[in-house]
């Protein structure tokens, strides 16, 4: 299949004391290689769950998930972790750099886990940091750099193993508008180089710049024509 991401009839139900939560109620979703998609929707709509399906962080109760040629549906945690390290770069809303490692060590981390670039990890890390203009803080610990710099470091980390897919969960949510803009430009650059990008966002302006916007509501995907303006915010 030529689609990088393919979700087929995916359902996700959580069991909690006192009932069931239907986070996803039967979702069909496809993303081709090189696409740039924004997922929008209110909290509880299921968009976080959807993203988690794509990254393998979560597994569907029913249905099939294929990403980057791999069937994730019944894979064990450890195998998924290993696959994810090589195939998906995840950028979180709150950066989530490991505070006990320097910026450069954080970028090297995924390479260590995946066993890639052996012997030239430092070199590659510096290349990536150069890409995001962070070479001069490579040796600093995350608590010693600004929020914008941390987020850029997170992106460099996401690119460590040159994954085909990059997933961002509100990647610019905690940045000021200038930094947010710079970040977005970087994303566009990566897509232009052939990477696939799926991004969750509340930011209407941002969503407006993304070629494809997919709305999620109540565990289902809405037809793009039904995108509700009220869900988006003018920056």
């Amino acid at each position, binding site marked *: 299949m030529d689609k990088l991401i393919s979700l087929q009839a995916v359902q996700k139900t959580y069991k909690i004391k*006192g009932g069931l939560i239907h986070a996803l109620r039967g979702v069909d979703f496809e993303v081709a290689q090189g696409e740039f998609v924004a997922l929008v929707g209110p909290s*509880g709509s299921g968009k976080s769950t959807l993203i988690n399906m794509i990254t393998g962080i979560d597994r569907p109760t029913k249905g099939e998930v294929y990403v980057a040629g791999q069937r994730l549906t019944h894979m064990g945690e450890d195998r998924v972790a290993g696959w994810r390290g090589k195939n998906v770069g995840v950028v979180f809303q709150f950066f989530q750099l490991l505070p006990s490692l320097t910026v450069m060590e954080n970028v090297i981390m995924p390479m260590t886990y995946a066993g890639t670039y052996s012997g030239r990890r430092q070199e590659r890390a510096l290349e990536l940091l150069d890409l995001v203009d962070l070479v001069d803080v490579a040796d600093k610990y995350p608590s*010693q750099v600004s929020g914008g710099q941390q987020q850029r470091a997170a992106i460099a980390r996401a690119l460590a193993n040159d994954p085909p897919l990059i997933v961002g969960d509100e990647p610019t949510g*905690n940045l000021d508008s200038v930094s947010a803009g710079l970040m977005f430009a970087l994303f566009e650059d990566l897509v232009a180089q052939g990477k696939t990008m799926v991004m969750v966002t*509340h930011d209407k302006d941002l969503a407006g710049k993304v070629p494809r916007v997919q709305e999620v509501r109540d565990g289902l995907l809405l037809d793009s024509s039904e995108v509700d303006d009220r869900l988006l915010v*003018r920056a």
Partner: protein
Amino acid sequence: MTSPFVITRNLVKHYDTPNGELEVLRGIDLELRRGDFAAIVGPSGAGKTTLLNMITAVDKPTRGEVIVGDKSVVQTPQPQLTKWRAKNIGIVFQFFQLLPTISVVDNIVFPMDYANVHKPAQRRDYALSWLARLGIEDQAEKRPDMLSGGQQQRTAIARALANNPPLIIGDEPTANLDRMSTENVFNIFQELADQGATVVITTYDRDIVANIPIVYELQDGKLKEIKSGKRMLV
């Protein structure tokens, strides 16, 4: 005209960061009266939470004055503010901040116990009635980690209202709610405002403030009135 209930005068707040000084609030003047229902909009990171923290006396300004009711919040030492705040300000935090080891209804009774508001025997029933109004009475005995985001947010709102405070502050109080629930919450706020409370909320979502009488915009550290709406004119 009634006198203002919440006043800020030339409120300034700076932070020291590794990259230099950050000016979040650059001189905010605000006046709200009893019965006002106001929203402050602005992008994330603009300083909305900071401004609220000034009003709730959770944080202190670098310069300026904050008066709530007859209390100068800036000049009152923290320990004296604890009980006063509990009785007078109901806060809905951005990330709910429910106590995870007690049940939903116990979370709502908590501020009543500590502010010593309402008769002890009636506190639980009162809590349940709020839960009912917010549509989550069936979650009463559950612990917060068993609820969805939206349900947790509604619990947080109920808790803020438990002591019938004259000032209600909500930091993105409906961010996790669907449209119906959001409308419900705003109706409750309006009702409370009609009964004389002052309600101030913040949001990034400009579209939901359509029905809120007073709207300010916070941008680049300054406050701009967008909608002056209904104000109590007596």
